[in-house]
C-alpha cells in the first residue's frame, strides 16, 4: 500500500460532493436518483478503504449489505417515479407538489 489513505478518502469525498451538487441543482427526478447512487458509492468506497487499511474484512460485509439495500432502494425509487409520471406526466421535481394544497 504505497498510496496514503488520505488519497482514497479525498476521492470518496469528491464523489460524495458531486452527488450532493447533483441533488441540489438538478430538477429531474432520475438525475437526482443517479446522484443518490453516486453518494452511496462514495460511502461504500470509504468503508472499503478503512477495511483495507485496517486489515479487517468486516467492512466488506457491510458494503455488501449496503449494496443490497441500494438495490432495493433503486427498485422502489423507480417504481415511485414511474407511478408519479403516470399521475402527473412529469418527473420535474418543481412541478410535483401534490403534497401541498
Amino acid at each position, binding site marked *: 500500500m504505497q498510496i496514503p489513505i488520505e488519497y482514497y478518502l479525498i476521492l470518496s469525498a469528491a464523489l460524495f460532493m458531486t452527488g450532493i451538487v447533483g441533488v441540489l441543482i438538478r430538477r429531474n427526478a432520475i438525475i437526482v436518483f443517479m446522484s443518490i447512487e453516486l453518494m452511496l458509492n462514495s460511502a461504500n468506497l470509504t468503508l472499503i478503504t478503512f477495511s483495507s487499511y485496517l486489515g479487517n474484512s468486516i467492512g466488506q460485509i457491510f458494503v455488501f449489505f449496503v449494496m443490497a439495500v441500494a438495490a432495493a432502494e433503486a427498485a422502489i425509487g423507480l417504481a415511485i417515479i414511474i*407511478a408519479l409520471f403516470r399521475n402527473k406526466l412529469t418527473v420535474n421535481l418543481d412541478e410535483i407538489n401534490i403534497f401541498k394544497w
Partner: protein
Amino acid sequence: MTVYDIIFYLFAAVTLISAFFVVTNRNIVHSAFFLLFTFFGVAGIYVMLGADFIAIVQLIVYVGGILILLLFGVMLTNKIVNVEIKTGTIHALPASIVLGLFAGAIGAAVLNTNWKIVESPDPVPTTAAIGRMLINEYALVFELLGILLLIALIGAASMARR
C-alpha cells in the same frame, strides 16, 4: 511514481470526471452512460484496495442491475418521440456555497485526523472469508436482507403496475 500510482490516478480520474458529467450533462441518457463509467472506476478502485469480491459485486449489481433499471426509468418517463429529454439546473449559487462549506469541513477532517493504519501484507482473496462470515456471524442480517429485497421487489411491482 510507480505503476500502482498511475493506475490509481487513472481510475480516480475516470470516476470523478464521469461523475461530473453525470451531474452536469443535460441529456439524461448520456448521464446514465457516464454513470456506467463512474461505476467501473469505483470497481477498479475496489480492486486496488484488495476487495476483489466487492468489485465483482459492484459490477454485477450496479452496472448489471441498477443502471439497467435506471435506463428503463428514463425510457418509461420520457416520451421518446419528443426531444424533451433534457432538463436544466437551478440554484447553482446556494449549491456552490453549501458545497464549499462541506468541502472545507470534510477536507479538514480528512487531513487533520491521524488515521490508524495497519501495515498489511499483499492482498489475499477475500471471497472465502466473506462467505464464511455471512453464514456464521452475520447469518441473521443476511436472511433479513433477503426478506427486505423480496418485500422491495413485491412493493415495486405492485406500485408500478397499477
